[in-house]
């Protein structure tokens, strides 16, 4: 693993204008200044509650949404505002897996056509023909290659998600943005799909940006974890550090909400009160201060920067980071 990041994101911002008639009346600050890197072959887990901007971030990374500002660098090239022609070679190295396996496959196309689509669109002629390559891909994701001529409605949710994965792999990408790839699936199927992704990552050396709201799935899958709250990263670091020594109060609260069968009662549970503030008008200073039990005057006045702590492995955006003992012991997995 080299130190040169595959994906370098700086100050990534997406604001959606709110219009009433012709007048712009406000801005939804869906994503507000993200900085992170993804190294080749690495998995970055992006976690946060609904509406915190995870999906918007994912869509911007594959340029389905145009960033308002900031920069995205992929493999040393700035792709923030690349046009369709410049994006072409890039599309092959940067793919996305979608959340809803029922909506992400065209119901009128056969599986073969769905998986072959990226190859045909980009004019790629694999040795042995497109059909052979597609069947190879189907086999790779654990589907029967003879299902080439079937339609999506004949498959279960988990199988459909595998088809979506095969489509994303068709162009041999270097980085895959997985936008909640398992949250629409049954728990038993989730494990299968996550394990499939992990095996693929090992075999093909893929880097992932893995978006999820399920902390257990993220923990299982990611080497590094970024915690988002209201359009910003509040904490980013190695998996072990985040899960064992969370320094941001929000991360701590999130982790404490994981049900733990070994503990009875609400022992360590931190209960956050109130709702997430509206991204139309986020709080001044630290965005989490309205629900934080440690909030002081400085939190309203000054926005905490995402500063590296612990010798640079973990960065936290908080004026009063936790330095307490680990909240969990590492559970051997």
């Amino acid at each position, binding site marked *: 693993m080299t130190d040169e990041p595959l994906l370098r994101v700086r100050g990534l911002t997406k604001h959606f204008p709110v219009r009433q008639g012709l007048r712009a009346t406000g801005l939804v600050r869906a994503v507000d200044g993200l900085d992170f890197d993804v190294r080749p072959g690495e998995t970055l887990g992006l976690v946060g509650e609904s509406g915190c901007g995870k999906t918007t971030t994912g869509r911007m990374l594959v340029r389905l949404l145009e960033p308002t500002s900031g920069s995205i660098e992929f493999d040393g090239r700035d792709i923030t505002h690349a046009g*369709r022609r410049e994006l072409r070679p890039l*599309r092959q190295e940067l793919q996305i897996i*979608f959340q809803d396996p029922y*909506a992400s*496959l065209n119901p*009128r196309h056969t599986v073969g056509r769905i998986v072959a*689509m990226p190859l045909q669109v980009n004019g790629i002629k694999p040795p042995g023909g497109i059909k052979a390559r597609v069947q190879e891909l189907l086999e790779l994701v654990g589907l029967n290659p*003879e299902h080439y001529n079937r339609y999506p409605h004949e498959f279960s949710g988990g199988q459909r998600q595998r088809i979506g994965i095969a489509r994303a792999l068709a162009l041999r990408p270097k980085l895959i943005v997985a936008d909640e790839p398992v949250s629409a699936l049954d728990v038993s199927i989730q494990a299968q799909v996550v394990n499939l992704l992990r095996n693929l990552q090992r075999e093909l050396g893929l880097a992932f940006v893995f978006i999820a709201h399920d902390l257990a799935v993220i923990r299982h899958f990611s080497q590094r974890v970024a915690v988002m709250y209201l359009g910003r990263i509040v904490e980013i670091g190695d998996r072990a550090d985040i899960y064992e020594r969370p320094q941001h109060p929000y991360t701590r609260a999130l982790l404490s909400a994981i049900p733990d069968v070994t503990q009875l009662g609400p022992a360590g549970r931190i209960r956050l009160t109130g709702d997430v503030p509206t991204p139309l008008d986020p709080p001044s200073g630290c965005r989490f201060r309205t629900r934080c039990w440690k909030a002081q005057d400085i939190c309203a006045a000054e926005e905490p920067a995402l500063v590296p702590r612990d010798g640079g492995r973990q960065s936290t955006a908080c004026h009063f980071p936790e330095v307490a003992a680990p909240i969990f012991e590492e559970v051997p997995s």
Partner: protein
Amino acid sequence: MSLSPVEGLALAEIESDPDAGTPAAKGVVGRSPGQLAWLRLRRDRTAVVSGVLLVFFMVLGLAAPLIEMAYGIGPREQFQNLLDGFGMPLGYAGGVTGDHWFGLEPNLGRDIFIRLIYGLRTSLFIAFAAALITATIGVVLGALAGYLGGWLDAVINWITDLTLAMPFLIIALALTPTVTLRFYGERGQVSSAFGVGVLIAVFAVFGWTSTARLVRGQVIALREREFVEAARASGVGLGHMLFRQLLPNIWAPILVSFSLAVPQFITSEAALSFIGVGLSDETPSFGRMIYDSLDFLQTDPAYVFFPGIMIFALVFAFNLFGDALRDALDPKSSR
């Protein structure tokens, strides 16, 4: 006379979820949604009967010259010797005989059967051509407006509203004679092809709006689906997106609107011919025949009977088939 054949149809759902219909048979090769719809259609008795009737009518229309040869009488042949002194056909029921199956026209003495066959040809040709053109214009404009949105959507919507606001009948009444005059002058002999062309053009100008709105709505609903984003993430172009990814999902409502537009155009053509702005007497057509027959409603009721029954059967079969098609393509839609 309304030229929007698909009102209410816009509610038809985008995707006829095949799981809800017949259980998909587990063969080695899967059944496409289209195949499933075909199976449902074949199982529907109304669809089969009306479909067979339609095919019969189309064969009649297409084979008109062959029928003329077999029948031995042309559409412009006059049999004055079979009319009485007042120009009325001799014999019963408007002169029905073994030679003239549906009798003869009063005054001119032309054979009604062969004129009906040729009238069928004219009506079907005009209706299909107009429906094809309007569907094409509607699909392209609607898909562009729906997918691209923005100012293009606003412009296309504005044109649609403008077209809908124009009174079809008045403009048809005013325009058709003017155009004919412009091309042929006061005394020129208007060719039948020209009359047909003008009618198709009038229908094309006014008929595309409902299809465009239908398609626009469906495309807007599909645009946010993830398979569209997946295609974009693979870098597909506009043409591929519209015609390969989106269009296959909205074939069902387009087909239904097409099959319901055809009878609309048949009746519209008849109505325009009836009020005298459609086809000339030279071209056999249902509307023109009914118009001519009105003078003889009391003296020769058989003259209005045959074209009336024919147009009724044709339009009825088309409408039943269109409904059955909608049921087959869209089992979940409610009436």
